[in-house]
């Protein structure tokens, strides 16, 4: 084809090749296309620390574990200390024949995760509740009494430890290499409110009129391992993150050591214990 022929063909073909002024219906606008282009289709969504998924700032956990305040820690006499005397295992006559059993203590915890260094560092709090109850002891039992315990009265001991904790969870392996285990540790100060009630359901008082209620300072150390449950169904975990903002769910167990005796200052009650907890947690 010569040059004139090519020109003529181009002129003839131009009207057909030229786009119309109005785009056909259903065509995305340029703004929409621009917005779409901000989505990274090449990899998962990540927060500012490079973790996949939605931003992760908080953690919430609920855990249960056996607990027994170490009230009798300093008791060195024969038999049982005062706490065991009241709340210990008893025989048919109400006499203590074994140490008290631990009671289940529920704990609620909340963390604000403010920094990430191979895992989130958080500041948090946890609140626990413990209560023990036993039949009151008859002060002056007689031979006619079948038991040394009162059938009408029960006494209780209650404590409510509130902790401020610094936490660290090593999530690097779980985030980058999909290892579902997250070791963690928490440490902080604890203030435990406590009170004990007498058989009349009043706050107990001694002969001097001092109330059997107060609070003691102490510290709490927790260390444990969390099992990130995302591996069970990763698709579901991602979907939950997208729809609810919950990044991860955990099943965890921990060892907990608390020393609640006012750091040994003054003559105070001792409420600490070394025990374990298990629970469920989420990060969001």
């Amino acid at each position, binding site marked *: 084809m010569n040059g004139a022929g090519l020109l003529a063909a181009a002129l003839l073909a131009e009207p057909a090749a030229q786009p119309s002024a109005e785009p056909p219906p259903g065509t995305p606008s340029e703004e929409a296309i621009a917005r779409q282009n901000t989505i990274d289709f090449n990899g998962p969504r990540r927060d500012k620390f490079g973790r996949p998924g939605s931003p992760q700032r908080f953690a919430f956990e609920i855990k249960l574990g056996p607990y027994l305040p170490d009230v009798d820690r300093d008791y060195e006499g024969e038999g049982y200390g005062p706490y065991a005397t009241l709340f210990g295992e008893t025989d048919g006559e109400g006499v203590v024949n074994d140490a008290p059993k631990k009671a289940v203590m529920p704990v609620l915890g909340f963390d604000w995760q403010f920094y990430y260094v191979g895992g989130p560092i958080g500041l948090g709090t946890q609140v626990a509740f413990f209560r023990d109850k036993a039949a009151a002891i008859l002060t002056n039992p007689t031979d006619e009494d079948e038991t040394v315990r009162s059938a009408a009265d029960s006494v209780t001991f209650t404590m409510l430890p509130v902790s401020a904790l610094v936490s660290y969870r090593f999530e690097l392996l779980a985030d980058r290499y999909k290892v579902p285990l997250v070791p963690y540790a928490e440490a902080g100060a604890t203030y435990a409110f406590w009170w004990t009630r007498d058989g009349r359901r009043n706050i*107990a008082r001694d002969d001097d009129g001092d109330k*059997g209620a107060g*609070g003691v300072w102490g510290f709490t150390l927790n260390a444990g391992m969390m099992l990130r449950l995302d591996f069970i169904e990763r698709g579901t975990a991602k979907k939950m993150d997208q729809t609810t903002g919950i990044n991860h769910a955990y099943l965890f167990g921990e060892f907990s050591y608390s*020393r609640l005796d006012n750091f*040994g200052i003054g003559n105070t009650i001792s409420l600490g214990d070394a025990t374990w907890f298990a629970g469920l947690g989420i990060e969001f």
Partner: protein
Amino acid sequence: MEYGTFARAWADPIVAGQQVGRTRLSFRHSPLPRAAKSSTMRVPESPNRCVCSHPPVASSLHAALAVAMRRTHDRLHRCRPFVGAGLLGALAFLTAPLSAQAEPPQGTDFTIQYWTTKADGSRGRQMTANDLRGYVNKARCECGQAVSARVRLQAPEARDSVPVRTYVGNRCDDGETFNNGQARPCVLAVNDFTNTYTRNVDFEFNPLWLATGVEPGSPRDPESAIAAQPCSTQTGDGGIWICVENGDQTDCQAAEFVVTGQQTEVTDADGNTPSLTYDFLPPTINATNFRAQGGDGSVVIKWDNTTTSDIQGYRALCANLDGTPVEGKGFNLPSVTAQNNGTIYYTAANLCPEGPFDQVDVTDDPDPIDDSDTGLDSDTDTDTDGDFGSTGAAGLGAQPSVAHGGMSDCCAAGSCSDNTCFAAVATVEGSCANDWTEQCAALALDYCEMCGGEGNCCAENTSPSCYDQACTVAVCSDDAFAYCCADRWDAACANRAKDGTCDVCDAGTTGSMGTGTDATTGSQADSSDSGSGSGSDSGSGTDTEGLDSSGIESLDWAYVCSDFIAANASTARINGLVNDQDYQVLLVAFDYAGNPVAASEVFTATPRETTDLWEQCDAQGELCGKGGFCNCTSGPSPDGTGWLLFTGLLGMLARRRRRSDARRAA
């Protein structure tokens, strides 16, 4: 009013005269002083019923003429300035077509309000929805504490002047027509013409009239009517019934009742309009296994609360062994007009310690409601006794006391044809509604008068004698206790029955104190006994012979030792008692209306000092330290490792933070 009716009113002294005169006698000026008879009517806005005045300006000329006419007829001889009745009749005749356009009053034209009354008989507060549901209880009935009522006609347009009769009771339509053998005519509180109701018509009535009608043959007005039944175990809805005569018959027919006892102006929070409820039946005790235990300065009553009933709550009562109230315990008597809200109870002895405010004569007929009576009396429609408005009763006037052939069928297993008895027993034991067993018959002994008695022989009750004939004879044969059969089976009679005189009091009870149940709780005591047993426990409570439990069994508020205890509770604690001292204790249950019943037996229990943790710590060398929320001022204890550990932890954190800051700065 149709002319025919008007003419009959004129010609019939019953309609036009006698009842008007009766009504006039009961009118009073307001405020009403404490009435010797509370069942009176007053029209405060009507200063005088003087018939010498000109007739009132009525909504229609015809109505005015009708009123003037009946007054004239009543006191014609004292109305010299007034024109003669014949002239009035002629005028009425001439104006009859004009007034025939007015309609008779409708039920919705009437507003009805109820008030409480104080001890002096004066009007208290207007009843609230709670009052309507729970104010009228057995104690108020026994004390005759009147209910004050106000009826007013507030029609949007003029109403025909016709006889309007106001009754108090329940099923007044049945009672008037007497087409049901279970019904008695209601007491007639107001009988006047429409115009009178355009003003406030105030009257008071004994609460008994809500539950029962008048004995056949007795007058119908509240002041002199004879009640067919005493305050017993009735429950139901009563109130004001209004009959607007249509002129077809001289007495009220069922269709003429435009207000049927349910009408009040009060609505509750849910928008419901409660009617005036009467409840004379104490609650059923379904709880079992009552036991009393001594605590530290306290006594605890425990029970197994397995099923629900109409119990609204409990109070625990306590007394010294000698029967006297415990010092520092007890409550002031509830106010006569207190709104109980289900938290207090009333006994007649507490409500009216000086005697009833008002009394209603009650028939001596042991079975005033005759099951076999069809209520159809050939004399009923004749009404020749001139007793307007009481035709039904007049018809039976020849037989003022309906004889009963013998014990009711309710008193034996099989069936029960007495509605009142049936309802009372079925309320206590629901299965009796389906099958009238021996148990139901036994309950009838307690709850039904026709079964020979109305009270437990082993507890105080308000009726003379008790249901067990042998026991009644045994007790009353002693001259010192003859009054038990003549007057009232009081606590002394019950104690006499319990001291071995009556076998019936030995059965079904546990412990020597196990008979301290109210007359209405015989069956409940049985149910309690049939459970796991009741009694004191763990040696801290004991049954003691020879106690005077009459005081605590009276349920007097001087013995109340606890606050209100909810119905779903299973324990009650009486605090403030002295250790190592014996006490009598009793649990009282009551319903919303405040009808009490002894739920448990009378127990004895002894408070025992107990030791708590704090005292135990103190006893073992202050091992628990000192209480308080900031016990940090003492020097460190020898064991300061905790403090050192925490300080070290904080130091490590601080050091790490400094290093981090330094790196960031670099």
